[in-house]
């Protein structure tokens, strides 16, 4: 177990370093961030001044060593655009993104699981076919497109839900959340649904194929031979088995939810870190991009770790020690 965690974090460290190097040198090749910082009517001397102030006049490797030296002192860089600690800026925005991703995940499960279960138990039922067709559609629809459609329909045309932004925020048990008010839920409903759409399809499919596979297994037949009620067979024997792949995949997909929030946050003006990343990329705000990569990779590694632990909790056959094979 401990070995496992060490392995995971060694990996994470490797990714972080690799990504940071790539991003650091990559952004440098792309363009000069100075042009994104100064106002449109900046004069040459202003530009040069800024360039000097930020050290862009130095060769990249000098900048990189400076960056490493700063890290050694616990300074992970300051945003060019915002000025503050880049990590801090990312972390400030993280709760909003995580909140969005978690709610999306919950949506995915509470919508996807029953539908998938149904489709798996009654594969030939017309409703099942409809569910599967819907899931293909859900798979295929580009997130950004759906996002706008949701806004058009629910916010602009029907006026039921707000189109943008996050509800009022409080800190509850040290976690910053907007979910304590109805307003918060109204705000999160559309973006979370948008983000969840793909995952709903995924859960439907996982649940369906899991159910179909599980229902063919001897243990289900044996359970029926024991005279168990269909409710118990589905609710305990099948469900517990399909939860294993679903939890695993969803756990891993949580990372992709966080990543896809870039799109959703942009459309719904959700104040999360995805939006910040996109803006930082466009503005070549290198410290922010680097910080984002560091934070997010660590986040993913942690999530993966949790998933693995959950997985072993769900599936007694798996022992973490043996996982590296």
């Amino acid at each position: 177990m401990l070995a496992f965690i060490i392995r995971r974090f060694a990996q994470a460290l490797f990714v972080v370093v690799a990504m940071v190097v790539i991003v650091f040198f990559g952004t440098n090749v792309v363009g000069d961030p100075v042009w994104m910082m100064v106002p449109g009517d900046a004069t040459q001397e202003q530009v040069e001044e800024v360039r000097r102030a930020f050290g862009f006049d130095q060769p990249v490797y000098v900048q990189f060593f400076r960056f490493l030296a700063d890290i050694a002192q616990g300074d992970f860089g300051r945003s060019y655009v915002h000025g503050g600690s880049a990590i801090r800026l990312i972390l400030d925005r993280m709760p909003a993104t995580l909140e969005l991703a978690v709610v999306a995940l919950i949506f995915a499960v509470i919508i996807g699981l029953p539908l998938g279960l149904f489709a798996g138990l009654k594969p030939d039922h017309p409703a099942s076919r409809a569910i599967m067709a819907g899931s293909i559609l859900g798979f295929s629809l580009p997130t950004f497109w759906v996002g706008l459609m949701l806004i058009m329909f629910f916010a602009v045309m029907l006026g039921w839900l707000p189109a943008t932004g996050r509800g009022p925020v409080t800190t509850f048990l040290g976690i910053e959340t907007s979910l304590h008010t109805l307003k918060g839920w109204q705000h999160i409903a559309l973006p979370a649904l948008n983000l969840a759409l793909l995952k709903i399809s995924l859960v439907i499919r996982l649940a369906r194929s899991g159910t179909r596979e599980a229902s063919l297994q001897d243990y289900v037949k044996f359970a029926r031979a024991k005279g168990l009620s269909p409710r118990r067979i589905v609710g305990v024997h099948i469900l517990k088995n399909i939860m294993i792949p679903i939890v695993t995949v969803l756990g891993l997909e949580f990372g992709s939810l966080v990543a896809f929030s870039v799109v959703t946050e942009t459309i719904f003006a959700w104040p999360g870190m995805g939006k910040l990343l996109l803006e930082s990329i466009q503005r070549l705000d290198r410290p922010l991009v680097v910080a984002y990569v560091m934070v997010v990779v660590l986040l993913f590694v942690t999530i993966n770790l949790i998933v693995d632990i959950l997985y072993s909790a769900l599936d007694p056959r798996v022992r973490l020690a043996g996982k590296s094979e």
Partner: protein
Amino acid sequence: MSDVVATPRAKGEFARFVDRFLEDRVAVFGLGLITLIVLLAVFAPLIAPQNPYDLAKVDIMDSRQPPGSKSMDGFTMWLGSDGVGRDLWSGILYGLRISLMVGLLSGLIAATIGLCIGLIAAYFGGRIENVIMRIVDLQLSLPSVLVALILVALLGKGVDKIIIALIVVQWAYYARTVRGSALVERRKEYVEAARSLGLSHTRTMLKHILPNCLAPVIVIATVQTAHAISLEATLSFLGVGLPQTEPSLGVLISNGFQYMLSGKYWISFFPGVALLLTIVGINLVGDRLRDVLNPRLEK
């Protein structure tokens, strides 16, 4: 001795596979759709009334015309025109070419790379496998949008750049899948038989194991291609995808995006529909392939 064959199946495996595939009407529809779309894309220069990339042919006076309008050149723009006066139908046909090319080419290269790497990992095992699989894990632990986003931001715009980015985000899926099935195959006794018959590693790998790993590759290839096309569109929407001047479907959609609320729905809607049909078609086919090629669910 008079041996009676138990179940002589008259048809070859491939024919059976085709039969099974065609049983599902939805999948056939998907296949038809894809075929049609590919044909449209291939023959776009012959079909399209306008070369949307030829600026001598495109006129801003035609911009934002609703579906069915006549262009300055006299042809009817059945799907209307976009913000710079490009005939949308032509734009979509040419855009399909780019989107499909990006999707297929990146998928093909990624599949080839993934196939080789996965096969080597599974076959030789040990340290090689460990190293390869760690890299694959790393790659997979980072969501594809994110990697593509950062890569494209670093590489810059352009079809070649986006193909590279898409290869980078895809290969690991292939490698993992191939390794998974190659590991299963490797444990089968026919591999041992090949070893016992003194056949070389290369021969065993390529001739014996590889063909048995292709089924899942085909399945994920469809999914991945659809994903790649959609990802390209997403990147274009985020402004880091393909150049705007020779638009893929994603660029067309994203260009039309700003007109969504102003009632000029067609600029974004039709490319969106084209994208949707393409992806749905591929996914339908992929879905059926998954069912057909997965013997576990065979009744």
